[in-house]
Each structure stands twice: as C-alpha cells, then as structure tokens.
C-alpha cells in the first residue's frame, strides 16, 4: 500500500479538495440577511458624475444616486451613514452587482430589456427620466444634431449611449467617427481639448460636465435633439424578491412624501397629522414596516435623512446645484411629470 510517510500528505490533499468542493457549493444567503449582518449597505456608484454620484475633495460622496442609497440605509438602520460606496466604471458596474460585490447599483443606469433579462438584474423605480443629447462648442456653429455629418464624437464604452449614437447616425444616414474612452475624466478632457467635435451622454450628465469641467461653460451648448429615452433606475440582483421590494418602496416613499407635502423640515409636525395616508407612511399607524421586514419608522428615517424627492432633486441637480436642471419629466404626476408613487398601503 502507500507508504506511511506519504499517507499523511495525501490525506491532507484529499481533505482539502473535499472541503473546497463543499465550500464552493454553499449558496450565498439573501441580500437582506447579509446587509443586516454587516450593518452596512454596499452601494455601487459612479466614478464621478456631477449631480448623481461624485466625491468632493474630502472623498465624501454626494448626488442623487448617493441620496437613494442614504435613504435605503436610513430606512434599514436609521442611520444614513451606514453606506459603503464602491466607485464603478461603466464597464465594471454589472459584473460588480452580479458577483455580489455591491448590494445595489445606484449609478445612473438606464433600464433596458437586455439588462433586465440577460444580465440577471431587476430594476427599482425610475429615479430620473433622462435622454441622450450632444454637447458641442458654440464656435462650430452647429444648431442641430443632424448637422453632425462626419463629426468625431467622444463617448464612453459599454453604455447605451454608444448604441444610441450609432443608431441615430444610421437612422439619419449620416456618418461619424467615435472616439471611445473608458475613464470619465479622460473622455471629458479629450472633448474639451478639441479631440472630438461633440460629446454625447445623458443630458443630465452633459449639464454636469459643462457646469463643472468646462473651461468656460458659456462656450458650449447642448444641442436641442434628445435622441433616446434614458430612464435611470437603481438595480439589484434577480432572485431576491425581499430585497427588491425594500429598495422599490424606499424609492416610492420619497415620491409619496413629496406628494403628501411631507419634507425634512415639517416632518415632526406631520407625524401629528390626522391624514391616514400620512400616518401610514410615517409609521404612526403600524403595519407597512412589518410587511416589508424593516422598522416601522423606515419612511420617517428616510425623509429625515435626505428629504423628499423634490428636495433631493433640487439639492443635487436642480436650482440649488450648479446644474440648474428643471424638473421637467421628473416632476410629480400631479404637476404634469412622470413621477408617480404606488400607494403606500
């Protein structure tokens, strides 16, 4: 038989292989359990899109997508600080979510059929209805995107932007040359140095780039054509309905709060309100939190931490920010926009 001196190492190797097999076969638990156990929400954000998720010079993240994650943490733990931000490029974002590196991808990602089906993701409600546009220098004298025949266009790879760009030029039977650069800083710098005639991304991103990165914002203009629908929504993994529901209703609560007139300033007075809808939302009437599997004061904590959707919008991309975007499609349905919360009952 195998000599004694060789028996021990062989046994060790077999035992190691066996444990490796069993360890790999163990399934990962649902996301909510993991988040509750770690006490922190891991939030995938961008590397620096002004107004949505960008770090300030101290490394703290701010933006609309960041506020969604803060609301989620506040709803779960009562503390908006219990978030870990993982900056992801457009190329890395889906693999990071699929592999479990992040719990939620709040990274101005467009909701499309392919992403919903083939990538194994589920999307939460849309937090920003956007569209793709073009940023050009005024001195080119271009008034419409259809005049861009033969232009060089800077774009980031792996995005719906790249596909919509090709489709737009094909549909209008004009040509272009793409310059495809992965890092956001590099693509913006390439555009402003004149390497490209036009820069294309979501219109909110263009506004942010022009406001924050242009040497002189008044030298650049966003062309009037919006060539695509870009509904930006947070994404979670498929197969975890509990987590999906929590993220969904955290977003709806922000919209519902604005609809009911609740904001971060009148929050405490509103807890004394007689309106049954307000009482249900803020947890004065219990039941909603238990149904979701979170604390009854989930919506109260959210709004206390980040305010309602209107406040989040104005602070990050609206009139209180350098971007100065109008509510437009992102206004409440009662005021002609598309933001419509499902009933919290």
């Amino acid at each position: 038989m195998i000599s004694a001196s060789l028996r021990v190492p062989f046994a060790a190797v077999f035992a190691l292989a066996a444990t490796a097999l069993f360890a790999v076969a163990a399934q990962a638990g649902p996301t909510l359990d993991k988040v509750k156990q770690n006490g922190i929400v891991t939030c995938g954000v961008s590397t620096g899109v002004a107004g949505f998720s960008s770090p300030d010079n101290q490394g703290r993240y701010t933006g609309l997508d960041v506020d969604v994650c803060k609301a989620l943490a506040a709803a779960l733990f009562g503390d908006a600080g219990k978030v870990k931000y993982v900056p992801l490029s457009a190329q890395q974002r889906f693999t990071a979510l699929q592999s479990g590196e992040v719990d939620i991808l709040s990274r101005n990602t467009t909701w499309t059929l392919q992403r919903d089906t083939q990538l194994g993701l589920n999307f939460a409600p849309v937090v920003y209805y956007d569209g793709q546009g073009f940023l050009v220098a005024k001195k080119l004298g271009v008034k419409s995107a259809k005049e861009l025949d033969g232009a060089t266009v800077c774009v980031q790879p792996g995005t719906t932007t790249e596909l919509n760009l090709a489709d737009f030029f094909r549909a209008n039977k004009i040509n272009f040359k793409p310059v495809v650069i992965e890092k956001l800083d590099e693509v913006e710098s390439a555009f402003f140095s004149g390497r490209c005639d036009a820069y294309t991304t979501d219109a909110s991103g263009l506004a942010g780039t022009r406001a924050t990165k242009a040497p002189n914002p008044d030298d650049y203009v966003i062309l009037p054509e919006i060539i695509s629908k870009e509904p930006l929504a947070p994404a979670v993994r498929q197969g975890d309905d509990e987590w999906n529901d929590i993220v969904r209703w955290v977003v709806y609560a922000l919209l519902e709060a604005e609809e009911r007139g609740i904001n971060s300033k009148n929050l405490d007075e509103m807890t004394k309100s007689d309106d049954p809808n307000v009482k249900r939302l803020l947890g004065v009437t219990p039941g909603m939190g238990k149904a979701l599997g979170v604390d009854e004061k989930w919506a109260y904590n959210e709004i206390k931490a980040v305010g309602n959707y209107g406040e989040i919008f104005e602070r990050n991309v609206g009139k209180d920010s350098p971007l100065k975007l109008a509510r437009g499609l992102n206004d409440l349905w009662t005021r002609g926009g598309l933001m419509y919360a499902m009933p919290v009952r």
Partner: protein
Amino acid sequence: MAIQSSPVSRPRGAFWNDAGVRGIVYQIVFVGIVVLVGWYLVSNTLANLHRQNIATGFGFLEREAAFAIGETPIAYSPADTYARAFLVGLINTLEVAALGIVLATILGTMIGVARLSGNWLIRKLTLAYVDTFRNIPLPLQLFFWWAMLRQAAPGPRQAWNLLPDIFVSNRGVVFPVPEYDPVQPWMALALAIGAVLTVLVRRWAKRRQALTGEQFPSGWVGLALILGLPLTVFVAAGMPFALDRPELKGFNFVGGHAISPEFTALLIGLVIYTGAFIAEIVRAGIQAVNWGQSEAAAALGLRQGHAMRLVILPQALRVIVPPVTSQYLNLTKNSSLGVFIGYPELVSIADTTMNQTGQAIEGITIIMAVYLTISLTISAGMNLYNRAVALPER
C-alpha cells in the same frame, strides 16, 4: 523515483512496491484530480450563471453589434455582428503589435549598441534613456504621449499643411494614398517573388564566396529585384495611378489615410518602453561575447562595423534571442492598454461587448484565447529563428 529497466532479472517484490508502477499510478491520480477540479469549476460556474439568469454561450457572436468603431482597417458598420467587431479589434491589435515589434527591435538594437560606444556623451544619454523609460509604468507613459499628441496640433479647421495634401491636426496625420487598382495585387505578387529571389541570390552568393572567395553585390541585386519587379509590372500595365486625396469636409478630413493620435501614442509608448528593455538585452548579449573575438577580428583587419555584423552579433544572438522573445510577447500584451487611451484594439472591443451582452466569462475567454494564440505563434517563430542562427558549441 528512477524507473529501473535493466534486462538483468532482479528480485521482484509485490508490484505495488515497484517504484515505476507507483510513479505511473501517482501521475494518473494527479491528472484525474486536475480534470475533476476543472470539470467541477466549469459546471459550478454554469450552474451559478443559470441560477442568476445570466445568459451563457457564444451565440451572442452572431447578434448585431450596434456600436461603431473608430478605426476600422476592414469594412465595418454597426449593423455587423459582434464576431466582425472582434475581428476588427484583432486586426488593430496585430497592426500595433507587428509595427511595434519591428520598430522596438530597431530602436533597441541601436540603443543597445550605442550603450557600448566609445563616446562618453552617447553612453550617458543612452543610459539616461534606458533608466527613465524602463522605470516609469507604461500606462503613465501612454497617457503622457497621448496628451502631448492631442495638444500638439490644432483642430482640423486650422490643421498644419506643411506638404501638399498632408495635414497634421489633433485628429491625426492624414495623407493621400493611391486608389485601388487591379494591378496592385500583381505588384504585391511581384514583390513577394522579388523577395524570394533575393534570398536565393544571397544563398548562392554566399556559397560562391565560400568556394571562390569572390564577393558578389547581392545587396544591390536584391534591392533591384525587390523594387524593380513590381515597377516592371506597374509600367507594363500602363502606369495607372490615381491618388485618394484628403479634403476638409465639415468637421474632418475625408479621403486619404489617417493615422490617429491614439494609434501613434500607443505605438510610440510601446516602442520606447520595450526598446529600453531590448537595448539592455542587446548590450548584455554583446558583452557576453568573449572579448578575444573582437580582438581577433581587429587583428584580422576587419572594420568595426564588419566586426560587429559578422563576428560579434551572430554569437551574441544566442544570448539575445530568448529574452527578446519575452519582450515581444510583453509588447503584444501591453498593446491591450490601448483601452485606456481610446484605441479600439481587441480588449477595448471585448470590454464593450461584455458590457452590452453581460457575458463577461465568454468575453474574457475569447481575449485569453486570442492572446495565447498570438503569443504562442511569436514564440514558435522566434524559436525557429533561434535554432537557425544558433552556432554550434565549440
């Protein structure tokens, strides 16, 4: 464990104590474990992907790519398949790799020989070059060259026009190229025939020199063949010649051939970086040759240039070729950094595809398989060359 195979009969114990049999059994068991682990990893991955509803398989290669590519050596439009997009990326990679290898070798050899020059200034300058460019990470060097090239020239509407029809702008260098004509494949064939004939002439001339001692100007004859044969074909066809000139239309130049700043930056960065390594390898190879050889060559009255070419370099090549093969492989793989500066080579296109289809594993597999094939081809070629130039040991 030595396998005993003497014909003398030896005392045979139980067969499981036989070292030879044991060796075979251990190897079978080990291979079995490796195959088992490999099979388990693959099936586990597939099961996990299926559980998470992520698409698998290579079927996506036949779908429409729907994205445009900036530099397309072959015809490509967004309506073409992902497979064709990968092909475009592969050709871009091969272009950069092939040109890079040739230029890096030339630059590296020149700098390597110059490192041993008698001139103090040249020695110090080349030392500074090698030390600087070997020690700065390659991505930083690429960003530097790309930024320089972008800032160096003005926009296309104010492009520099130093020579007629050649324009330099921050979109690249654009120059006229001859338009396609049916005589051109015949000229290429004539060139190939000329090259083959040159090699044969050289072989014949060397044999003649070994027998009779008379030299033959095979270099000039070779040049005449390589240039003359295509020229004859061209003249015989009636000299059809039309230039495709670049013209400024709207935003960019249309027509002619453009070399983009991304390609130039990647090429310059790779050549300078790899050239520094090759320079040191060449220097080491030359210094490895016995000093007595160059003394003997001088004693025979050979000029410095001839001594280097005929005596020293052939012996140095034995030492130089294997490390330089590694540097060629490094250059090919480093061309994947083009994704950072916007050059659409294979990794850049694969990244975009992976992001659009969500099939990261298939994309990475394709990238790995392609680079493995390219690297193995380069190694095989260089090993053949090595064996051809290897001098038999004394």
